[in-house]
């Protein structure tokens, strides 16, 4: 559990609470990068409870967040120069958006925290500022009924908190809307790339080894020459689906993510073909095309999980058709490629 951001403490009639810095240390920055790239798989959490920012008193506002350290860090940084309280819910180290979907960032946990820390004794007002994403799990009217605290939904992004406060706790349309701009998509690509985990290494390795095979004869030299081409083909298809497609998302035709991934996959295949990668013979080329198209399409379809505008009904609809086709294409391609090892 991280502690380095605590810079002091504040004493209230309801107890002593830690005061946290509103600046990021190099340590915080480095950990943010590590988390984005899923390095170390550490649990990046803060202790649930009440924290102070600046010199908070009984009139200071209360901001609610998750105990995922990045959520907490973005909030405390956005509160620079403000005296406030932060109420951290126990979401088991998961960000507000995901935790609200699962219900861990929800009415029950919020009510429990308010009572556990006797928030009514810390502040004299009865208002909580909850990030708008939290509304998926929190029912404002129920919190009010159970605790007397009114939930005010803040802006989607922590950096809009100051303008939101300046406007008398009113979020503009823009602050309420979730956009999915290039910068946001870029930030999510590392996680997508790391999603393949060991598979993204084992599968190319298997291809590399099998590449040495030709008509019952095995040669290391062939494994190196053909195998490296196979590995490049595979990684190209993988990145086409989980990096290129997200980057180009709005500019690729079609609405279905699987089709978007197919378009980039075919584009990448064409580039590989004309630069001397892909295969040497026609059957090999066709096999690769099938596999590359399937991989790119599948990875792109997975980006629906990260995007912020795809509905469950929509994803189910596109998967019903796409998933079997992806499996068939990948299967045929794989069989074709293995057969070409023997002819």
């Amino acid at each position, binding site marked *: 559990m991280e502690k380095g951001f605590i810079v002091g403490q504040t004493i209230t009639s309801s107890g002593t609470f830690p005061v946290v810095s509103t600046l990021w240390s190099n340590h915080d920055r480095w950990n943010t990068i590590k988390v984005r790239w899923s390095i170390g798989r550490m649990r990046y959490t803060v202790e649930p409870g009440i924290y102070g920012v600046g010199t908070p008193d009984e009139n200071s506002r209360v901001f609610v967040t998750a105990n995922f350290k990045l959520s907490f860090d973005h909030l405390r940084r956005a509160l620079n120069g403000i005296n406030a309280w932060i109420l951290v819910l126990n979401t088991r180290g998961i960000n507000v958006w995901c935790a609200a979907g699962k219900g861990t960032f929800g009415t029950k946990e919020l009510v429990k925290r308010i009572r556990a820390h006797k928030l009514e004794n810390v502040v004299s007002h009865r208002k909580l500022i909850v990030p708008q994403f939290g509304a*998926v799990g929190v029912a404002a009217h129920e919190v009010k009924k159970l605790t007397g605290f009114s939930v005010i939904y803040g802006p989607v992004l922590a950096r809009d908190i100051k303008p939101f406060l300046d406007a008398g706790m009113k979020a503009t349309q823009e602050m*309420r*809307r979730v956009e999915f701009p290039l910068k946001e998509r870029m930030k*999510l690509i590392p996680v997508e790339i790391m999603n393949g985990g060991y598979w993204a290494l084992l599968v190319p390795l298997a291809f590399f080894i099998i590449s040495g095979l030709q008509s019952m004869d095995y040669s290391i030299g062939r494994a190196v020459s053909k195998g490296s081409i196979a590995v490049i083909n595979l990684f190209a298809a993988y990145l086409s689906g989980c990096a290129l497609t997200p980057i180009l998302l709005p500019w690729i035709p079609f*609405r279905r993510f699987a089709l978007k991934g197919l378009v980039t996959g075919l584009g990448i295949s064409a580039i590989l073909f004309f630069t001397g990668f892909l295969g040497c013979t026609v059957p090999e080329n066709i096999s690769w095309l099938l596999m590359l198209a399937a991989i790119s399409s599948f990875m792109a379809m997975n980006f629906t*999980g990260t995007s912020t505008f795809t509905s*469950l009904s929509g994803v189910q609809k*596109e998967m019903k058709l796409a998933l079997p086709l992806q499996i068939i294409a990948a299967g045929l391609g794989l069989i074709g490629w293995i057969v070409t090892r023997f002819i």
Partner: protein
Amino acid sequence: MIMNGLVYLTDVVTLELDKEKCNGCGMCMIVCPHAVFEIENRKALIRNKNLCMECGACEKNCPEEAIHVRSGVGCAAGIINGLLRGTEPTCDCSGPGSNCC
């Protein structure tokens, strides 16, 4: 009206609004991340149904229970997860840095 050109599949969204029950409080408009609702003559109205991502925030925060939507994770990995386990679509956000679902 439609930002970024990012619209997902159309005519699949399960969102429904019962105008009779609506009291015009505007909560649905506040919590919706895709500006699906509008308030007109003290009643909510679905303006951009196709933009709905079925997150369920509006249903959760409607004090009159006037909204219904089959909410869940619009996430391919989550649906595959559900298929494999024989459960509802569920994402596996056990990774701490995970931005999934």
